[in-house]
């Protein structure tokens, strides 16, 4: 399997169109940058489709205005994930062959959560997507090659979870969820880099830029491996449904003032809702306390896409300092979330094994 995108599904209002169709006296023109992307990708044999909360005339307008023959168009007021699903079916494509572009972060989150196989992009991402491996013959890691298999496991897990009566923790215990934290080695670096590029919802940084030493690149992860005072942590996840492999990681740095700073934290959205980011944050607090640190800090880009990470940080007792919560908008900046590591320490979720910790709760009831 490859992760090659075979069809891009576009939102119209303020994405492919430079304006809002129903609010404009004259139908808005196409966004010039994205119209160029449309043509560029089209020339590589990639299909285009439309998913828009607009009357069908908007799709006809977009086709005329861009000169693009869209392979499918879904216009209506239902969920975008359902529109994307219908488009995939009508074109006979797997969902993992689709990308979805929308300016609205909630539409993106909805599609990302409902259809994790789909590559979800903001218009800014889409503008340079032509250079991404998903739009060219990809270099894929073992995890990426197994993506289709992993999503099949995920479907089976979700079906079971729906039928399972009782709290989520009980389901995780029944499913034999095992979260393994460890120190990274060189073999882990391609996957960590891939996570830094591909994950958006649980990512404390920006997608790595083109500079080789920028946070999140392979070279940056390699340098962190050897750097004194820094640790590179990997997180693996498996249960009775299958082995997800390496789903996340982070790089930490200790400073003489008694703080541990998480320079970058990335986690696959496939692992969301399975206690994994919570396990990592709890262990980081416990580990910092063991090292005698007083504070754990997580500098975090504030974007509309990584709200799930902010939820995890807030839930784990972190607070962002020096930031006005005055309704003036929070996007586009960096805030440092921090937590004192003195006092009562958080417990690791059941089934978690990690350096410096006792075994993964082998005495836990229901352990398979």
């Amino acid at each position, binding site marked *: 399997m490859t992760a090659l995108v075979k069809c891009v599904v576009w939102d119209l209002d303020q994405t492919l169109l430079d304006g809002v169709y129903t609010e404009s006296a004259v139908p808005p023109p196409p966004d010039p940058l994205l119209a160029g992307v449309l043509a560029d990708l089209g020339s590589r044999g990639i299909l285009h489709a439309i998913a828009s909360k607009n009357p069908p005339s908007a799709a006809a307008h977009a086709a005329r205005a861009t000169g693009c023959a869209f392979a499918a168009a879904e216009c209506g007021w239902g969920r975008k994930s359902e529109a994307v699903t219908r488009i995939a079916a009508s074109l006979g494509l797997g969902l993992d062959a689709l990308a979805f572009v929308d300016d609205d972060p*909630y539409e993106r*989150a*909805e599609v990302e*959560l409902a259809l994790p196989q789909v590559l979800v992009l903001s218009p800014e991402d889409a503008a340079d997507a032509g250079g991404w491996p998903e739009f060219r013959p990809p270099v894929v890691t073992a995890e990426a090659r197994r993506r289709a298999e992993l999503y099949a496991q995920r479907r089976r897990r979700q079906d079971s979870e*729906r039928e399972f*009566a009782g*709290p*989520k923790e009980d389901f995780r215990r029944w499913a034999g969820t095992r979260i393994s934290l460890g120190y990274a080695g060189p073999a882990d670096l391609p996957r960590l880099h891939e996570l830094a590029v591909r994950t958006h*919802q*649980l990512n404390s940084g920006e997608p790595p830029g083109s500079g080789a030493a920028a946070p999140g690149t392979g070279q940056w992860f390699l340098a962190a491996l050897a750097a004194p005072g820094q640790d590179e942590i990997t997180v693996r996840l498996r249960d009775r449904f299958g082995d997800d492999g390496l789903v996340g990681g982070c790089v930490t740095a200790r400073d003489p003032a008694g703080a541990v700073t998480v320079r970058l934290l990335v986690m696959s959205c496939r692992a*969301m*809702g399975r*206690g994994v*980011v*919570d396990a990592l944050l709890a262990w980081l607090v416990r580990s910092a306390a063991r090292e005698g640190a007083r504070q754990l800090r997580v500098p975090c880009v*504030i974007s*509309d896409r990584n*709200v*799930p*990470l*902010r*939820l*995890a940080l*807030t*839930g784990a007792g972190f*607070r*962002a300092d020096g*930031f006005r*919560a005055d*309704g003036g*908008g*929070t*996007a586009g900046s960096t*805030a440092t979330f921090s937590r004192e590591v003195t006092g009562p320490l958080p417990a690791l979720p059941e089934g978690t094994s990690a350096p410096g910790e006792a075994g993964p709760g082998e005495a836990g009831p229901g352990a398979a």
Partner: protein
Amino acid sequence: MTAAEVADEIRRYLAGATGRPELLTVPASTPLFGRGVGLDSLTGTLLLRQIRERYGVDVAAEDLNLDSLASLASLAAFVAERVGASGASGASGGSGAS
């Protein structure tokens, strides 16, 4: 719309989304994270999306620390304040957390 009415709608949403009917009757002071409702990054994201769709309030954009998610009451008050500001009756009924 009052905070108490918003709180009831949030209870119904959470009970449906998590399959836990006991959430229909939890007190407004119940914490949303941790031992209370047990919100995590996934259920929290779904809840914020629901609030945005239902009330037009983008909690994450206005509240960096997500203080409004401290409890059912604080979230309901946060939402009701903003919904109330655009015409409906003011917020009441929630014992807003600090």
